[in-house]
């Protein structure tokens, strides 16, 4: 469409202004370009019976799933130190036990899965484990098998699944059944102050963390994945 306007200016001159309008078929591509880096938070997308609610941060090419967990399966080697059972990840001789460490309420654990769609299926692109304080600061726990950015060294498991929910379920199952070894290990002292158990008659109770401020045993982290965690 074209319209023509004749403008009479204050100084007496006449000006012709031609306005031409046409619709551009670029809405979708422009919108996609403008929102390329934007993500959306969706809470309580689904619930996993053994773990709880799963939240999703959805981007244009991927999704980051957060499961707020309250325990860590610690299948590792342990030794008794002053009547307290502590991990000995690098040991080959101490007893191997599948213990469950229960997090105190001040330590919020986020198990995170990033997925991407590939054709008809969804692929697991990584698992992360973050510990968070009350102000949503992220920390790397004093555990082996965790990279500096809290990416978990999971070992191999099937990464292609039909849905995002199956990806999260498979990741948590791998997390549950994996053994912790000494790969990516730092100092064992911090691990042994953090993860402590009291042997009782028929079980092992989680003991409080040995220091007042648990974050002093961890490394503070800031990553683009952590930014997408929903607590």
């Amino acid at each position, binding site marked *: 469409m074209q319209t023509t306007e004749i403008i009479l200016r204050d100084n007496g001159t006449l000006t012709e202004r031609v306005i031409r309008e046409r619709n551009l078929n670029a809405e979708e591509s422009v919108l996609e370009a403008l929102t390329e*880096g934007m993500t959306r938070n969706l809470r309580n997308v689904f619930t996993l019976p053994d773990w709880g609610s799963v939240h999703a941060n959805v981007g244009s090419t991927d999704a980051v799933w957060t499961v707020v967990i309250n325990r860590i399966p610690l299948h590792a080697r342990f030794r008794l130190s002053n009547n307290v059972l502590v991990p000995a990840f690098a040991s080959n001789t101490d007893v191997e036990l599948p213990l469950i460490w229960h997090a105190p309420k001040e330590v919020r654990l986020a198990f995170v899965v990033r997925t991407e769609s590939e054709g008809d299926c969804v692929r697991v692109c990584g698992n992360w484990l973050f510990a968070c304080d009350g*102000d*949503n*600061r*992220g920390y*790397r726990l004093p555990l082996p098998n965790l*990279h*500096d*950015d*809290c*990416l978990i*060294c999971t070992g191999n498991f099937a990464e292609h699944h039909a849905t995002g929910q199956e990806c999260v379920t498979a990741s948590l199952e791998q997390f549950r059944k994996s053994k912790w070894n000494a*790969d*990516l290990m730092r100092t064992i002292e911090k691990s042994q102050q953090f993860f402590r158990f009291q042997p009782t008659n028929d079980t092992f109770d989680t003991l409080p963390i040995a220091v007042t401020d648990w974050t002093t045993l961890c*490394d*503070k*982290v*800031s*990553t*683009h994945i*952590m930014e997408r965690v929903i607590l």
Partner: protein
Amino acid sequence: MKNITVKYGVDSITKQVEDSFTFGDLQENDSFQAALGFGDRTKALVEGIEQDRGTVIPSGATVRLETAANTKA
């Protein structure tokens, strides 16, 4: 001197630094490290773009530091 703002996770700090202050200087600076709690392995980003350690930080810039991923030995 110039002002820069540095973010690490949910924490941030604005400080005055020398005009020649680079991204590498920031990543090794004890004062910023103590205030924000980052470690030895970081990457520096401006507007989501990773910056070279030798580049001088522009005055007034907001720098986001992120934990750099290590690899298994």
